[in-house]
Structures are given as C-alpha cells and as structure tokens.
C-alpha cells in the first residue's frame, strides 16, 4: 500500500488553506463592512459551493480548461499552465470549493465585534490596515481557527470535483478520497480501510481540537 495519496491530500489541503487565508482575510473584511447589492452578489457567489453539487463545478472546469479551445488553450499557450489533470487544477478547484468555509466564519466574527473597537483605534491614529491586523484580528482568534481548520478539513474531504477533473494520476491527482473509492471498486477493502481510518483520525482530531480550544477561549474572563 502506498501512502502517497495521503501526503498528496495533506499537501493539497495545506496549500489551499494558505491561499484561502491570503484571499479570504481581506475579502471577509471587505464583505463585513457595510452592505451593497454588489457585495451581496459577491457573497452569494462565494457561498454557492456550499449548496452546488461538485459535479457542476467539475463540469464547468472541464469545459473551461480543455486545452483545445477557449481559456484552456490560451493558458496552455501563453503560460504553459494546464488546469485539467494537474495538481494546480486541484488547487484551483479546492480554493473555489472551500472558500465559503474560510470567508463565512471570519466575516461573521468581524461583524459581531463592537464598532467602538475599530473607532477607538482610528482615534488613536492607527490606519485601517494597522487596525485590522493589530486590533480586529487578535479579537477573532477562535473564528479564525475555526475557519482555517474547516477549510483544511473540507479540502481533505473533496471528492466529486477531483473525480471529474483529476484523471486519477498517482502522485499528481490521486488524492486519498479517490484512493478509497478505487480500493472499494477494486474490492480491496483492507486498503480502503487504512486510507479511511487515517482520514477519519485526522479530521476527528482536528475538529475536536477546535472545539476544545474555542471552549477554553470562550470561558476566559476577558471574553
């Protein structure tokens, strides 16, 4: 039995989480400030992967990034990037697919902070950016952790999109969830069980960890 699908899955989840953190923080902050029709539409698009079947995303990615026409052809010729059957394709799909898990908790936490917090900081002469990094972010630590862990865990669990655009290539796109599916199809239940047990343990420990941390945090007298 190979452990490469497990490593590949962890790598995919880690890269996706870091990328989403970089994209998600400013985006969640922007969304948390005020409301406009434009913001509502953007937020709806970000949230849609929660309810949209993965096959819809898989289908559109497959069509959009086919190297024979359109964007896929241009990307391949101009930058030599291919998003179907490649690791970067899985990263792209995961970023889209896990985005609501990163943006959601951060945005609602920011909205629940008292306005006075940011106002006090501005009064003391801090810029918006300084206020965000040094005042707001430290105050939403539990939500930040929840967002990071949920994003990571959700990427571990990705299956449908990968099945459609991955091509099941060992060490490139054969992630653990696909390896489980393959072993079951192949009636290799022992191998399926090992992969499943590893995934089960990782996600269980992570989710338990978040619960414990957030509970301890909420109990602190300062909260």
């Amino acid at each position, binding site marked *: 039995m190979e452990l490469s699908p497990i490593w590949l899955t962890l790598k995919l989840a880690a890269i996706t989480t870091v990328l989403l953190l970089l994209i998600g923080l400013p985006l969640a902050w922007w969304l948390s400030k005020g409301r406009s029709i434009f913001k509502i539409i953007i937020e709806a698009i970000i949230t849609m992967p929660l309810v949209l079947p993965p096959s819809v995303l898989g289908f559109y990615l497959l069509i959009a990034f086919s190297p024979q026409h359109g964007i896929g052809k241009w990307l391949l010729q101009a930058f030599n990037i291919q998003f179907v059957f490649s690791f970067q394709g899985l990263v792209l799909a995961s970023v889209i697919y896990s985005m609501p898990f990163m943006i959601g908790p951060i945005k609602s936490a920011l909205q629940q902070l008292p306005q006075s917090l940011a106002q006090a900081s501005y009064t003391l002469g801090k810029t918006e950016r300084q206020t965000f990094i040094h005042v707001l972010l430290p105050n939403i630590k539990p939500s930040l952790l929840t967002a990071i862990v949920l994003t990571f865990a959700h990427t571990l669990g990705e299956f449908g999109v990968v099945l459609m655009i991955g091509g099941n290539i060992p060490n490139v796109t054969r992630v653990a969830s696909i390896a489980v599916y393959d072993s079951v199809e192949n*009636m290799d239940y022992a191998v399926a069980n090992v992969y499943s047990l590893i995934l089960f343990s990782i996600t269980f420990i992570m989710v338990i960890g978040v619960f414990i941390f957030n509970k301890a945090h909420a109990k602190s007298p300062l909260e």
Partner: protein
Amino acid sequence: MKTNQFQKRLILLVGCLLISISSFAQIKVAAAANLQGIIKVLKEDFAKKTGIAIDPIIGSSGNLSTQIQNGAPFDVFLSADMNFAQKLFDGGFAQKKPVVYASGSLIICSTQNLGFENWERLLLTPAIKKIAIANPTIAPYGKAAEEALKAKGVLSEIKSKTVYGESIAQVNTYITTSVVEVGFTTQALIKDAANKTTLYYKVIDPKLYSPIQQGMVVLKHGSGNADAEKFYQYILSADAKKIFKEYGYNVD
C-alpha cells in the same frame, strides 16, 4: 356521508399510487460503461418485442459488482469481462455461470485527425500531451489498453502522459470534450457519438490484448423473475446480436 366520500377518494388515490408504483417495478439491468449507448437501443427493441421495460444502471464493471455484492437490487448484470461476472457467480450472487454475450473491440480515438497508422509512435510525440485510458484495475477496456501499450513497448514511456478514467464512460467524456488528445476506448463510442462529434479512430489489432469477452449473469435478485429471464434470453438472441454487431462488437 361526507366522510364516506372522503374515504372513497382516499382509497382511489391510494389505489392509483399503488398501480403507478407497480408499473415502475421494471427489471433492473446493471450494465458496464461500454454499453451506455447500445443499452438504450437494446432497451427499446426489447420493449417493442415483449412489452417489458428495463431500467439500466451504468457504471464500471468493478463498481457495479461491488454494489451487487453489497445488496444492490439488480436483476441482470452485463459485465465488460468474464472476471467480474465469474466472481459474482463464485460468491453465490448469481444463478448460473456467466455466458459471453459479446466481445468488445478496442480503438484509439481522438477529435483531431492525427493519423493513427503508427499510433505507438504518435503517442511519443510532443503533440500528444494527455492520453486517457480507463482505470486498468476495474475497467476491462483499461486493462486491454494497457496490454496493447505494453505489447508495443511504449507503456512506461507514456506513463507521465496517462490519465485514468474511472470507467470507459469517463474516458469517452475526456475524448469528446477534447481535454485529452487521444484515448483508448470501445468501438461502440463511434456509433454512439455519430451525430454529435466527429471522431477519428483506428481499431487496435486484437492480437495485442487478451480478448474482451463480456459476460452476463442473472443475479439472485432476479431469480424467479420471468421478465429477467426473458431479457437474458433476448441478449443472446439473433436480434440483439445484430445490434451488437452494428456497434462494433464481435458476436459468434
């Protein structure tokens, strides 16, 4: 008086519901992915001749036989090889030993006219970036493709270009949407896609791979079901054989 009328209506409604449910009790046919096009034609022809409706479930042979072993309520199984059908018989999931109903034919196929005279050399050229084959451990056409590539001595060289479909149906999707330059699939795709996509193909020399003998069994769930038995006989009939031939299968 009013309640009486209400009761009558209710009985009528339940009656209608039961009738509609029973008319849905068609025989369920688990069919390997290479049959996804032809099964519609067979279904129509069978319904015309007998009035019996079948309900096809398409998947890779490996996936379907796993589902059957775990209690899927299928009556007949049309596998893409003898192996999966034989395993079901050995495991007590089928009534009788599997019979061969058709032999499949492997092709190399593309939406582009690449010239397949020397297909093994073509695969090595940089123009070919991705080659789709079905997962060889669960899809018999994938296994045949791997054997043919091995026989031509290019299997290890093209490994980095290979992408695996979970069934021959997914390989067909990859070919017809042009996300791969070439793929190895069933000849049935050609007739199937005739009105939709222009495809270029070459039949792979059958000497390069072990024959894809496709086996059929009546499953335990379908035993004693006269309709299932009729469908089994129909698949082996001259009428069905004619249709199989049209789709590029070999029948004796």
